[in-house]
């Protein structure tokens, strides 16, 4: 009787094992990408630092929307961190260097704006948890309609004041020449109030335009030099007193980057566009101590999503899914 029992049991388990061998695994949904920030002893010297060749990167896919609907893009993303700072390196293909941002051009008789925008990349982190951001990314941030009063300051924000996002916005024409990415944050938005706020301090850009909007108001100050990509920084500008010095074909920056100060100057940027590829390095303190910034704790993981703008503005962008940021020990 005991022998029979043992034989039945042996047979039964062999049956289960054999059946499971033919069991086809059910489909597994595409897992969320994880970017692991490598632990570096010292800060990378720049975008050519040896650390970037050893840091493991991920290729983040982007889906185009609005004017880019149906198109795809991808960005190689890497990250390293030191005892007090974090560094992100982004590389993506872009056949055209776009830094025009409606610059002024003189044709010998009158001034007019050049057609063209700028290349940009933006990152959104959570300062306080944004409901379902971890799974749906920027899609859960509220986008107000085009004509709404709040739309002029940026058309998106969160759905409650408790939800806060940290928006890093690198702009090839308006922030990069100053060596920074614009540091802003998101809070509740509605039709009247914009949810997009600037971090404490100064920054952004200054419009170079006369009161009648007919021509530029500022030019390069004597003894100063144009910044990268021939962009005129606001701090290097002087009011134009004599327009006769300009000749046909002269171009002057329309949106002059300000040198950021305070919490708005937290994100430093270094970039290079060569052979149809952007390489952008952003760096920031892990914890700036500012309420308008996400504080990174290397023991924790963070979600972020990115948007890519190719010579485009508004919502004409390529968007990524949410990515998880982890820190290697």
């Amino acid at each position, binding site marked *: 009787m*005991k*022998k029979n*029992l*043992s034989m039945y*049991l*042996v047979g039964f*388990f062999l049956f*289960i*094992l054999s*059946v*499971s*061998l033919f*069991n086809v*695994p*059910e489909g*597994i*949904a595409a*897992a*969320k990408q994880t970017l692991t920030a490598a632990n570096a002893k010292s800060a990378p010297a720049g975008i050519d630092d040896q650390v970037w060749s050893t840091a493991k990167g991920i290729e983040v896919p982007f889906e185009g929307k609005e004017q880019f609907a149906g198109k795809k893009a991808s960005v190689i993303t890497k990250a390293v961190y030191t005892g007090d700072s974090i560094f992100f390196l982004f590389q993506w293909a872009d056949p055209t260097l776009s830094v025009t941002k409606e610059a002024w051009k003189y044709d010998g008789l009158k001034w007019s704006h050049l057609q063209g925008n700028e290349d940009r990349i933006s990152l959104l982190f959570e300062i306080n*948890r944004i*409901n*379902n951001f*971890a*799974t*749906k990314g920027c899609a859960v941030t509220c986008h107000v309609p085009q004509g709404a009063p709040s739309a002029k300051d940026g058309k998106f924000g969160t759905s409650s004041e408790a939800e806060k996002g940290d928006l890093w916005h690198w702009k090839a024409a308006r922030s990069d020449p100053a060596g920074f990415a614009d540091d802003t944050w998101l809070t509740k938005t509605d039709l009247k109030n914009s949810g997009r706020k600037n971090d404490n301090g100064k920054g952004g850009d200054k419009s170079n335009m006369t009161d009648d909007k007919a021509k530029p108001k500022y030019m390069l100050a004597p003894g100063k030099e144009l910044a990268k990509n021939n962009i005129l920084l606001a701090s290097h500008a002087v009011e134009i007193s004599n327009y006769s010095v300009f000749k046909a074909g002269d171009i002057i920056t329309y949106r002059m980057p300000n040198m950021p100060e305070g919490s708005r100057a937290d994100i430093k940027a270094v970039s290079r566009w060569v052979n149809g590829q952007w390489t952008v390095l952003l760096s920031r303190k892990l914890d700036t101590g500012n309420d308008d910034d996400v504080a990174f*704790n290397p*023991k*924790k993981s963070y*979600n972020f999503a990115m948007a890519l703008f190719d010579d485009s503005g508004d919502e004409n962008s390529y968007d990524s899914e949410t990515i*998880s940021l982890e820190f290697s*020990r």
Partner: protein
Amino acid sequence: MAATDQKSKKNISGLLIESLGIERVVANLLEFEIRTDAISWHRFFGALNIVFLVLLFLSGSVMAFYYSPIPGTAYDSVDFALFNLPFGGIIKGVHHYSWNILLVMMGLHLMRGFVAGAYKPPRQLVWISGVIILTVVPMFIITGDLLPWDQKGYWSTRVRLSIIHSIPFIGDFTVRFIQGGPLTGIVALTRFYVLHTLFLPGLLLLAVGVHLHLIRYRGLSEPLFGNEKTICRISFFPDFLNRWLILFLIVTIVLGLVSHYWTAPLGDPADPTDSTYIPKPEWWVLFLNQLVAIFKGPFSIMGTVVIPGGLFGLLAALPFLDRSAERDPGRRIIVMVIAAVIVSGMTGLSLMGYIEHFVSAGK
């Protein structure tokens, strides 16, 4: 002077014991002796299990001070305790690693008891009470999994509830009873919290109390080899308790260091609308998960109830199925072969589950 102090202390403690009416309990405790090999190099799983249970109770109690059992705030409260509270990461880590190791230790404890024939008369009830503890501990894990309200816990719970729901006749009622309705929401979280922190601890304390009482009443199983009469005995209080406390301290320090270095995991906040998320099964349910995957449709009850229930029934009924007095494993070939087949089956299924969910899925 010192003698006077000692006398006055004795008087105070004596007065306290007398006032509480526990003279007999204290006398019994002081007289109680236990075998020296109750904690030794070849018998320590039971003592270690108590260490982990105590650590789970202590760490869980601290975590409860900061936990908010509401879906909108549960995740944030756990996140706060884990990353912002001083030593919060260590406390959560000790809780996390303790239950994982406890499961392993309980398995080894069971295996040792099985090989040593500890279920043989007169210790049948000791064995059965142990099996009951073995069924209660996973319930802690299942109810605790939902509490952080993260993706993994939420969707693992949904999967488990759907498995329970598939049980004929009682499935629907059981799920509604457990989660307080058709949805896994605030009522479900409250019920899981109450089960995890009130009902189950009470049940476990009772089961462990009965287990220890039966061990005291029936004695520890004799060594397989050698003469039991040569084993010395020591007083439970303070000698044995001191040994246990040393074990407790070592385990606590090691787990504290591990928790400091490897932070306990906390996934993304639960998103009940994200049905694309497929939770990976925990290591200890891989074989059960594989059973569910094998038996589908009308046969699903085999994987969800019949086989797991049958295995537990077999385990509980072991003292009555194998009634011979023989304890030498070399002379209990049939029982050992059956056990080896079952363990091999569970290991094989777990390996398949691991390959399916952690190796193939990662490619």
